């Protein structure tokens, strides 16, 4: 995105809401509010400091409005951009623009979902599409499964390589006390699990759990005086390529190949400068596509790249250290949690799963059926 200044804003507070399975009758906005108060505590700001509200949620159609009412704040600026799981990366970019232009000074991004409690079908009803619905694809899984079918056909990617992504995520999750999954997972267990939409078994698919999060951003100048060391937004990139999977020009190339370069250009860095990668892993094929499209391996090599534990703890590249949407938490739209892990890595708060000397982290969000792709590069104080 041209026009934004590298490092002009910083993340100063982050928090998850309660995750996993919440109490009956908990609302998505309860979770947003809980996470917001925790994120404010993380940075030492108060509710009354927030003058920008950014939110999207499948269960709350007017999310910024509903959240502002709940919290009793009257934001000067608000944005409800809803493009699926990458919405929150877009919110970071939009918040940066708003803060740079003085439209707000302290921006809150929040999300909540009770999809485990109320069922995925109730939390995220699919829109009717007369050119798709008669064929009864199991969405969104079937769209990603078809992308996997193309990748396997064109590049020889195997189901075992897809399973490596789930196994690596599980190994990271076992280092994260907040992760939903607590037991080890093998490639054989992934392959032998219940088939959902070929080539995906249920272990190739993200979790369906409750949860939410919040992030507070402010200007780099104001960030200096707050509780934690600032984590600067070095670069952002947003891209939309299609809405329905039949309109995706090439199922093996996502628009991350556009959002990534935009973010790298703004940040003035390249993939080899990135210390830790947080990728939206809705399905095992997505990290493979994004590792290629974001420049960590050549197009078509993603399956071979992840084989042998490359992205697992102790591997060559630290990917999804929280355990990801596959094993840590996936509350419907997971993008905010993707960024929270990246911010914590740059802060050095990740204990057993901490990446050594993590100065630059990349967080990449995906929405719809590989439809929206947004990339954010975060850097510690030494990078600005």
């Amino acid at each position, binding site marked *: 995105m041209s026009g934004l200044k590298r490092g002009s804003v910083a993340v100063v507070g982050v928090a998850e809401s309660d995750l996993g399975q919440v109490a009956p009758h908990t609302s998505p906005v309860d979770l947003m509010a809980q996470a917001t108060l925790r994120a404010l505590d993380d940075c030492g700001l108060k509710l009354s400091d927030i003058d920008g509200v950014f939110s999207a949620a499948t269960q709350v159609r007017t999310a910024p409005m509903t959240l502002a009412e709940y919290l009793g704040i009257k934001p000067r600026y608000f944005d409800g951009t809803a493009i699926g799981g990458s919405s929150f990366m877009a919110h970071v970019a939009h918040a940066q623009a708003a803060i740079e232009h003085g439209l707000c000074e302290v921006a809150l991004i929040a999300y909540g979902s009770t999809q485990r409690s109320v069922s995925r079908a109730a939390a995220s009803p699919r829109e009717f599409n007369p050119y798709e619905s008669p064929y009864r694809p199991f969405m969104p899984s079937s769209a990603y499964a078809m992308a996997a079918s193309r990748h396997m056909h064109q590049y020889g990617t195997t189901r075992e390589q897809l399973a490596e992504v789930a196994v690596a995520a599980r190994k990271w999750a076992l280092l994260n006390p907040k992760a939903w999954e607590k037991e080890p997972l093998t490639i054989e267990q992934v392959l032998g699990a219940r088939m959902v939409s070929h080539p995906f078994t249920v272990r190739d698919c993200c979790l369906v759990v409750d949860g939410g999060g919040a992030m507070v951003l402010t200007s780099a100048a104001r960030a200096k005086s707050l509780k934690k060391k600032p984590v600067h937004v070095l670069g952002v990139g947003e891209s939309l390529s299609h809405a*329905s999977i039949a309109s995706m020009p090439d199922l093996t190339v996502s628009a991350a190949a556009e959002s990534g370069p935009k973010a790298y250009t703004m940040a003035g860095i390249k993939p080899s400068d990135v210390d830790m990668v947080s990728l939206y892993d809705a399905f095992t094929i997505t990290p493979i596509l994004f590792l290629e499209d974001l420049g960590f391996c050549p197009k078509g090599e993603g399956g071979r790249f992840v084989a042998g534990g490359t992205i697992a703890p102790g591997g060559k590249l630290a990917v999804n250290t929280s355990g990801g949407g596959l094993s840590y938490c996936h509350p419907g739209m997971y993008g905010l949690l993707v960024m929270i892990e990246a911010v914590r890595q740059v802060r050095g708060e990740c204990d057993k799963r901490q990446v050594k000397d993590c100065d630059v982290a990349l967080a990449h969000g995906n929405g719809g059926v590989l439809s929206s792709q947004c990339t954010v590069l975060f850097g510690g104080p030494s990078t600005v």
Partner: protein
Amino acid sequence: MQDLKQQSPYGVFIEHCKKGELAFQVCADDGRAVFYPRVAAPRSGSTNLEWRVSKGLGTVYATTVVYYKGEPPLNVALVDLDEGFRMMSRVEGTDPLQVRIGMRVKVKMAPGDDKQPPFPVFTPLLTEEGSPGSGGGGGSGGQNHPDPSGHPSLGRRGK
């Protein structure tokens, strides 16, 4: 411009389906196929769209098999029609797991019911030897596909 008080793009599509026809649009300005049917061509915005009936021959571009509880496995596929557009559909008349990328297929109309108008599905196109055929070049259809979506061609940037 289509008069939406009289007729909708999907309405016209359904009328063709009822006659056993797979309909699509062609932009008369540049000859590009447009699918799904719209009131204007993507990108150019041209309203100079003409309806055509497809020959119904295509190549499987991508495929999956859905496993709904208590039901037989169900194929879902993306099919590249020879006229240069892509659509979601399914391939019937063969084991869903045997539907292969590159397989040549032919349209037929599924009957529908009270709520669902007839809709196009596909069956394997039998070759002269009597086995499901694989079209020439179909296996790499992704690279050659003429971008039916109307979006800036992400595909050409690939590889």
